Structure formats: structure tokens, C-alpha cells
């Protein structure tokens, strides 16, 4: 899915995957193996991310404190977990099950796991055992506050993906715009933006977000996004600026100028379309970083404000409950797999989308490697 047959000719600057060794001409068998392996990895990564996105989208169907569909007291509710009808305010799956079995007429279609990420307010934690624990109807156990781990993982995927996507969109648009302006117009504007980039890249992201979240009157998703965006856009801006500088000296840009196109037209119609590929690649790597970052921040409890479920926040509970290995393993593996998948996808995309990177390989590659197919 992510690689073309010409993958063999691909040369990237920071590639991890094997390339044909320079002195010997590459054997077609080795090329094919390398190709397949990379293709398999890329495929696996994108499949995993697709499933994760699906899980995040369908979180309410997979785990919720209310049924997917139910009829109780003569009324039918569709996805009450999302619509939150006031009539069901005091209900959860367990109560609905009791009542539909017993006194009240009705039926219900339950989600895969009958617990939500946040316990219903009127359902106290069962007192017989101190949470966190495994079993007792919770497939992956509960966390320190008696909340279902599976539900929090599933809804945490939603949090993680939403936060990361929003943050990346925000800083890519800001960084991209500023970087393009700096690279294209140069001069004072470039100097000013370059200073700004240097200023903001000096702030360690975690430190800055920590301080922002601590100082704002009420930490929120927005302040988290602003904090992340503030320190992350310089990187994108740097990449875009370098790309614009490169593209800006291309002949077709000179031709467009010579034909009398206005600078803005040249920038928007001739330069920007030609730097989309590196931006997409940078976005993918950016997503990987932000997923990690969000987890770290939530782990430090300065990420998304509670009780929003988050993988990092689950991991932070292990510190007080050393026996609860499931709180360490499941969210940790999910963070790891998501980040790894995004990184693999980023590399695959870079190979696929950016023909220039293939041409830009070191002299070693240029001498003995086969010429790019197109």
C-alpha cells in the first residue's frame, strides 16, 4: 500500500531500511526481500492505524456505560451514551439489565464491554476489593478509581488521536504558512521569522506545556493544544522554509515570474503545490511525536484535564499501585504501537511521495544504485 515497485531505487537520507551495498551490484532477490519487508511493515502500520481510528470512532459502541440500543419504560433510545437522554441520567448498563429482566418491559443491545470510561455517578465502587484489580466482569481489569481499563483504553484512543490530529493541524498550518513566507519573500521577514523559530525551539515542549497548564486559570484541551503548537511549529516552519527555498529557485518558478505572475500567485500556485509531499511526511512524523508527547504530559498529569481518559494518565497510576501490571502494559503497548506505526508510515510515505529525496541520495548510492524508475 505504501510502496511502489520502484522502491528498490529509493534513496532517503535517513533511511533505516536496507539498501543495496555500494560496491556490489544489488541482486534482485535482496531487493525483492527488502521491498517486501518494507511493504509488509508499511501495510501493517497503516492497518493498525486504520483499526485504531475505527476503534476511536466507535468507542461508544465498544465500551460504554449505556446500551447501544435499548427500550425501557416504553421508550426506545438509540445510542443513549452519546445523546445522554435525561430520562436515563441515573441508569447504567447494570441497572438497565436488572430492570429489563425484572419489573420493567424492555430490551437492550449492549456494547462489547458494559462499562464507560468514567463511572456513572450513582454506582459506587464495589467495596469487596480495593481497586485496581483484574477480573469481576472487567475484561482488562479496573484502574485505581475502579474504572474499566478496556473502556478507558478505547476512549483514550479517541483522546489521543483527537488531540494529536488537532495539534498537528494547528502547528502545521501556522508553521507551514510562516515557513513558506520566510522562504519565499526572504529579507527582513525571513530574518524575523527565523529569530522567532530560534526563540521558540529553545523551549522544551514538556516544560512549556507544563507551565502553561499550571498557570492558566483552568487547564483545558485548548491550552494543551496551544502549548504543544507553540513549541512544535518551528520544526515544520524550518522544513517548509528549506523546501520553499529549493523550489523557489526552480526554473518553472522563474518562468512564472518572468511571465509576470504576482509573487502571491507564484507562491500559491507554483511553489506550495510542489512542497505538499514533505509537509505530509512531516505531519506524519509530527503525529507520532504528539502522540508520545500527549502521553507524557498526561502521565505528568498536565495533559488533557481529568476525567478525560488518556493512556498516559493510566500509566501514571502504576506509580501508586505497583502490582497493577495491566495498567502498565496495555496503555504502554498501545502508545508504543501507535507511535511506531506512525513512524513507519511516515517513512513509507516519505519514500513514496517525495521523488526528490530519492534523487538526493549520497554519492555512494548515485554511483552504483540503479537509476530511479521515473
Amino acid at each position, binding site marked *: 500500500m505504501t510502496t511502489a515497485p520502484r522502491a528498490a531505487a529509493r534513496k532517503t537520507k535517513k533511511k533505516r531500511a536496507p539498501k543495496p551495498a*555500494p560496491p556490489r551490484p544489488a541482486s534482485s532477490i535482496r531487493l525483492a526481500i527488502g521491498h517486501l519487508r518494507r511493504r509488509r511493515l508499511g501495510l501493517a502500520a497503516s492497518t493498525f492505524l486504520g483499526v485504531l481510528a475505527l476503534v476511536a470512532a466507535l468507542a461508544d459502541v465498544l465500551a460504554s456505560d449505556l446500551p447501544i440500543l435499548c427500550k425501557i419504560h416504553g421508550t426506545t433510545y438509540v445510542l443513549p451514551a452519546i445523546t445522554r437522554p435525561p430520562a436515563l441520567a441515573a441508569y447504567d448498563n447494570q441497572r438497565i439489565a436488572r430492570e429489563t429482566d425484572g419489573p420493567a418491559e424492555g430490551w437492550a443491545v449492549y456494547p462489547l464491554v458494559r462499562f464507560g470510561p468514567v463511572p456513572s455517578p450513582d454506582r459506587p465502587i464495589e467495596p469487596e476489593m480495593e481497586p485496581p484489580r483484574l477480573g469481576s466482569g472487567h475484561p482488562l481489569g479496573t484502574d485505581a478509581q475502579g474504572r474499566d481499563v478496556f473502556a478507558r483504553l478505547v476512549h483514550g484512543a479517541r483522546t489521543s488521536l483527537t488531540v494529536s490530529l488537532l495539534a498537528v493541524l494547528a502547528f502545521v498550518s501556522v508553521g507551514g504558512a510562516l515557513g513558506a513566507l520566510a522562504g519565499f519573500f526572504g529579507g527582513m521577514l525571513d530574518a524575523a521569522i527565523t529569530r522567532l523559530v530560534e526563540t521558540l525551539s529553545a*523551549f522544551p515542549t514538556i516544560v512549556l506545556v507544563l*507551565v502553561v497548564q499550571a498557570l492558566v486559570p483552568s487547564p483545558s484541551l485548548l491550552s494543551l493544544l496551544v502549548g504543544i503548537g507553540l513549541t512544535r511549529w518551528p520544526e515544520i516552519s524550518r522544513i517548509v522554509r528549506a523546501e520553499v527555498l529549493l523550489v523557489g529557485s526552480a526554473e518553472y518558478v522563474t518562468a512564472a515570474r518572468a511571465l509576470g505572475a504576482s509573487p502571491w500567485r507564484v507562491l500559491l500556485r507554483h511553489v506550495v503545490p510542489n512542497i505538499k509531499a514533505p509537509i505530509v511526511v512531516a505531519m506524519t512524523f509530527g503525529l507520532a511525536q504528539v502522540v508520545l508527547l500527549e502521553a507524557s504530559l498526561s*502521565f505528568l498529569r498536565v495533559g488533557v484535564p481529568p476525567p478525560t481518559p488518556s493512556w498516559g494518565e493510566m500509566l501514571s497510576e502504576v506509580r501508586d499501585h505497583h502490582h497493577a501490571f495491566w495498567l502498565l502494559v496495555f496503555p504502554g503497548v498501545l502508545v508504543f504501537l501507535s*507511535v511506531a506505526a506512525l513512524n513507519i508510515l511516515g517513512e513509507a510515505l516519505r519514500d513514496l511521495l517525495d521523488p526528490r529525496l530519492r534523487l538526493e541520495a549520497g*554519492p555512494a548510492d548515485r554511483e552504483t544504485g540503479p537509476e530511479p524508475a521515473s
Partner: protein
Amino acid sequence: MIPHHAAYALRRILWSIPTLFGISLVVFFLTSLLPDPGGTLAARATALAADPGAYDALVEQRRQRFLDLPRFFNPRPRDVRVKAEEAVRHLVAEDAEAPFAARELPRLGGAALPYVLPHMDDLAPAERARVAVALAPVAERMGLGDPAELRDPQRAPVFWERFWEDRSLDFTEPSVRRSVTRMARHATDLREKDLQQVDTYAVPEVIREMAETQDRAALARLSAVVRRATGRGMVIDEQADARAAAHALRDWSEWWYVHQTDYEALDGPERVTATVSETRYGKWIARAALGEFGVSPRDGEPILAKIGRHAPITFALTGLSMLLSYLIAIPVAVVSAWRRGKPVDTVLGLVLLALYSMPTFWLAQLFARLVPHDSVEGRLVLPVIALTLASLAILSRYQRTAMLEVLGQDYVRTAHAKGVPLAGVIVVHALRNAMMPTVTLAGLHVPTLIGGAFVVEEVFALPGLGYESLRAVEGRDAAWLVATVLVTAVVAMAGIIASDVAYGLLDPRVRDRLGRHGPEEVHA
């Protein structure tokens, strides 16, 4: 003539000045995220109506944070004269701010009198009475008049009129200066009374004298004078030890930094500089530049001393981890570049990708669980390893690319052809040239490493900047957080600049790119 590369280094360092300014602006912006408790008139009115003492504390708190000042430019700096005249105006107009003015005027005290009393005759009798009654606490502090008289709208104006006729000559700078100097030299009841009767008018002189005098007894007398006039602060005990005295003196000088314009009139050139210095940013940066970040509200310890205590742990952690990263990353990169495409390269690549994708705190927690880390070495070794693993991959990949590039160069082939042993080719001819860009990159990793250190410290409960910052978040200690973010950003910036300078010094191609518009993004 300045050598070419020295000029480069100098230029690069000079270009860090706007960056430093930018960093200070960002941190200043962070400080303004803190909510302003008495930002609105209504909030202050409610506070005053509920409890005058709480109102005073609120106003004082705002003053400490310079919230009354404009952010960046103060076209009309308010000194004691403007403040006094404003207060009188509010009292005369009896507007919404009159209750505040009635508290402000006594606070300004004697220092405001030269700007209030001479103009009393211009006011209508009722207005004059209001101003005179508002001044009652000042006379009480001076030990003059009797309370009933001072609070009587009929008699108070007469009292103040007579007061000014008798004593206006005391309210001149030379006269106060003389009294203060004498007081510092030798105290008599009379001299003390003289100073008491000009109230806060003597504060500027006394503070100046306190900063200069070495005599502990004089300090004790002078601090008693300011304390009486302002109703706050510490009296320096004659028998107190040096540390307590220094502490009190520091407290007074900090107080003076905030309150100078409450007691002193600005004139001429001072007025011009005050348009910049009497601003929220100006006041904040002037202190921050001297490392003065105030005291921690958690334990009253000066923030700077506290940072000095915790920062070494963080910087040791990042420094050691950087060293270890290089020690591991470079051999790994050499092997995988040399065996490019072989299983070794593939496996190393996958392992590095895995490490790169692994959350640092997760690794750290695994470590913390698997290995006991009670001993001092254990407390530093495991965190360093945890922090290293994450940064390994980036360095190693970068080094591998550089290595591949160099391995394809003609001189490497020449060395091969001449029959230099393989190890010799790799280490002497290739690595030496390929290492330069990676090593000079070290500074660029400082921000990332510091961020990682914050997480690792929290997992291992290492009392570094990160661990302490999280305690500061819990304790709502804004002063600490602001200072930390400033310190880490400045350190990280120094790292970035050092990287650029080193890279430029070693590589003439980079050096020549530093054109008219300042440094390009060298490492882009």
C-alpha cells in the same frame, strides 16, 4: 584583522540577543496567564466592602506583580505626585473609585502631602473636608493631633492647614537627607521624632541610607523608621546575626523595587526612562536578568537558590545521557553504515525505531519496577539509561547517513585501494570526517533532553528541576515555574548557539552562509 572564524562566532553570538529577548517575551507572556485577582473595579469594590484588610492584601499582591502598570510602554509613568493628585481627584469627585482613594492616600502618606496640602485652598469646603479626613491615619502615624479632631470634617482641614504652615519646610529633600544622615550616625529621640513627622516622605532617603550603611545599629534604627511609616517589613535587630540582617535588607530592597514610585517623584530624565522601565515587562525583566525571581510561596526560599540546588541533577542527567547516547550511537551507526543492507543493519534499524517510538516514561517505569534503585548510583544510572535510549535513535540515524555519504567519497576509496586495513579506513578516514556534523549537533538535543529529564525525574523521584516543577504545579508555585521555564529555555538556547558556532567553525561552507540576515538555519 579579526580572523574569519572568530568573526563568525562573534556574529552568531550577537544574533542570540534578539533570541534572548524573544525568550523573555514568551516567558513574560506566560506570567500574564496567571489570573488577575482584582482586575476589575467591581472585584476590588467587593473585596473592599467585605474586608478592608483583604482588600489591602489584594492590592498589594497586584502591585507585587506590577499589574497596575501597562505591559510594554508607559507614556505617563505614575509617580507619587500623579498618584496623590489622582486620589484627591477621586475623593473630590466622590466617584466609584473614591473608597479606593481614601485607602490609597494614607498609604502614600507623608510623601503625598507636598502634592496635596498646598492645593487644599483650591477645593470647596466639603471637598477639603473629605480629603482631610482621609489623611487622618497619616497624622496618627506621625503622632500628631487627636483622633477625634482628625476625623471631624470641621476641624480636620484646619489641622492640616496649620500643619502645612508649620512644617512645609521639613518636607524638602535637603532637610530629610540631613535628618536621615544624622539619624544613621547617632539616634536621639528628637531626630527620631523629626523623621516620624515627615512619615513616608523620608522613605526614599532612608532606603538609600540603609543600602549604604555598614553599621548594624544604624540599620536597626533606619529600618524601624521605614517600618513605622509603611506599616510593614522587618526591623533589623541590632543583635541579629548577619544572615537575618541580610535577609531583612533584601526584603526591604525588593519592597523598594516594587514601591519606589509610591514615595518618590520622577523628574526630567527619570520620567523618560520610566516610560520603559515603569512597565510590567520592564520591571519583570530587570529583576529576572539579575536572577531575582522572588521567593517560593511554598517554603519562602529564594527561587534562585532553589534552582541552584535542583538544576545540577537535571543537567547531570541530561549531560550524562548525551554522553552515553554518543558513545552508543556512533558505533551503532558505523556498524550499520558499514554493513548496509545486511541483517545487522536491518535489526539495528528496527531496534532503534522501536526505541524511538517508546515512551520514555514507560521505559523508565519498567526500569523502576524491574531494578531496585535505592542506592545513589542506582538512582542516577537507571534514569540516565532511560533517557538515553530515546535519544539514541535520532543521533544514530543522523550519524549513519553522514557515514554513508563519507564512505562513498573518493578519498575513502583511495584509502581502500592503498591497502589500508578496513578498520583503519572506517575509523581514520571515514568516521573522523563523518562525526563532525553529529557531534556539533549535540546542542540541538538539549531542549528534547531537558523535556525527557522532566519525565524521568518524576518516575525515579529524582529531585531535579522536573520533579520540583511538578511539586510546584501541585503547590501553585508560579514563581518557580516561570523561573524554571526561563532557565531551561536559556540553557537550551545556549546549546543551540554552541552547536551553530561549533559547526560553523569547523565547516567553512556553513560559515560563509551567515550572510546579512543573520544565521540561516544551519541544521535545517
